[in-house]
């Protein structure tokens, strides 16, 4: 399926390109994103590839530096969410019984409380910083992965190789780490990709709603500032459009990556060919 391979390669390429830009931000960006450089609201020219905003800051430099915040939010949040979700799913599914019941009931309760408003309250209450937001998103988002992992573990826990290992005298911890975990890693990987996408959108959304660290450049704040200051009505496209396109592109790449991986590991969905 060459078409699927092309999409997959493109998605990987985009994600790697974003990572490279984030790492090399000081080299690529021509200006300090907070510095005043030339005239405010000037259209793109050769000094300012994407013009300047109302504070005469270079939009292109802001865009480059903003990559860091986006990737940190997405990947740290997803790493925490997947680690907790996978651990809880494995323990719950492996031991079963009372532990399983307790985890499941806890999950029922947690899933009833809408995560986003809760996230808004917590980030407003604590001083919003990029790491804090990432950690909070990871903690609150960890509930969603548990069920999927658990149902996979349920079937792994009674598999012959697990029973055999136990007969050899292996402890529960060893079995869970060496025999159960590898079995759920593909699922956890898909969850990581989709969570990262989700958290990037949410994290930038928080910036858009005005709850982030103002000293960190992020695309949400850029979009918010542009739309609040009439970039749309004044036709200042270079201020409003680039950050939105940047989010959409990385989100799309991760979404396609996620669907492609899901397609690969879920045999019942394999009939669908992207």
């Amino acid at each position: 399926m060459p078409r699927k391979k092309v999409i997959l390669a493109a998605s990987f390429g985009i994600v790697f390109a974003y990572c490279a830009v984030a790492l090399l931000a000081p080299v690529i960006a021509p200006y300090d994103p907070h510095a005043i450089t030339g005239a405010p609201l000037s259209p793109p020219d050769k000094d300012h590839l994407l013009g300047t905003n109302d504070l005469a800051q270079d939009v292109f430099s802001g865009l480059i530096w903003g990559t860091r915040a986006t990737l940190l939010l997405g990947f740290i949040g997803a790493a925490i969410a997947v680690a907790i979700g996978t651990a809880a799913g494995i323990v719950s599914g492996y031991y079963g019984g009372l532990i399983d019941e307790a985890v499941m009931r806890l999950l029922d309760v947690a899933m009833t409380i809408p995560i986003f408003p809760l996230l808004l309250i917590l980030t407003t209450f604590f001083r919003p910083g990029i790491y804090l937001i990432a950690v909070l998103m990871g903690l609150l988002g960890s509930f969603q992965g548990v069920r999927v992992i658990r149902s996979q573990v349920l079937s792994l826990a009674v598999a012959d190789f697990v029973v055999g290992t136990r007969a050899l005298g292996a402890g529960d911890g060893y079995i869970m780490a060496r025999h159960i975990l590898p079995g759920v890693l593909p699922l956890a990987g898909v969850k990581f990709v989709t969570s990262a996408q989700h958290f990037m959108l949410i994290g930038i959304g928080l910036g858009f709603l005005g709850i982030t660290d103002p000293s960190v450049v992020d695309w949400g704040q850029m979009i918010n500032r542009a739309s609040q200051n009439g970039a749309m009505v004044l036709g200042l496209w270079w201020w409003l459009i680039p950050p939105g396109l940047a989010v959409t592109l990385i989100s799309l790449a991760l979404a396609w990556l996620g669907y492609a991986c899901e397609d690969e590991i879920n045999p019942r969905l394999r009939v669908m060919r992207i």
Partner: protein
Amino acid sequence: MNGIYLLKRLATSFAAFCIAVTIMFALLRLMPGDYITMYLESIYRYAPPDVVETFNRVYGLDRPILEQYFTYLLDAFRGNWGYSFIYKVPVLTVIGEKLVWTLIILLPATILATLAGIGIGAYSGWRRGSKADVGLLNGMIFIRAIPSYWLALMILIIFAYYLNLFPLGGYVDTSALATGIDPFDVANHAVLPILTLFLFSVTGTYYLMRNSMLMTAGEDYITTARAKGLDELTILRKHALKNAMLPMVTLITLECAGMITGSIFVETIFSWPGLGMLTYKALAARDLPLLQGILLIDTLFVIAANIAADLIYPLVDPRVQVGDDA
């Protein structure tokens, strides 16, 4: 309906509500300094100790923390959710006013998105692998990947600003000041927010329905129906569609929380005076009691959606007694 299951559902809902209230209580107590000292110092630069003591006694703030907590919890159930900092009225009053406006755009968007998502998803899943299916799937993945706030901005720019088809924001024309609120005018203002929420939600329903249809289409009874010589349309209508729709009831309620998130961004961008816009204002003013009230009402919203799904499920599928792990 299964009694134990109902009990479980009620207990879960009750616990969720209590936890939401407890978070509020904890946060309010974690705030630095005590309320009255901060307040007096901000006005008079000095807080007389006897005034502080009287205030604390009158409002019960000198009681043991556990007693305060239970009073707070009980009050939350009685509908006393505190006072908003910015509006200076009970939180529940503000929320009640705004809730109506949110429902005006949320209900049509949800209903349309559910119907369209199920219809298109079923078609896509039934015709799996065809050009139409691949196109629809990729299109839906594309729309889903666009952040809702960005989608709202683009729709606003294209349809309201450049094409000038709909108003730029708000909920009524300024002429309403003289003539009163005209339902058609409100509807005109609601079109773009509804469209955005619809696009935001339809992709999720589509994807779930398509997956469900893929599973159903592989079942043996579909092959049997085909072997009997039934035409495709009858198989789809009588056998596949009905069965594929069953899991949708529960899955759609899961989308409810997503709709709340979406409405916050959509209302903010379209200046629609509902709960989402209220959230934005409360955030800007750091109005903690109001934010907490919004969290509580959102929690109640999800609980209501869950219970609705429980009630609808047996109607859709008479085989299922609610409580079987369906």
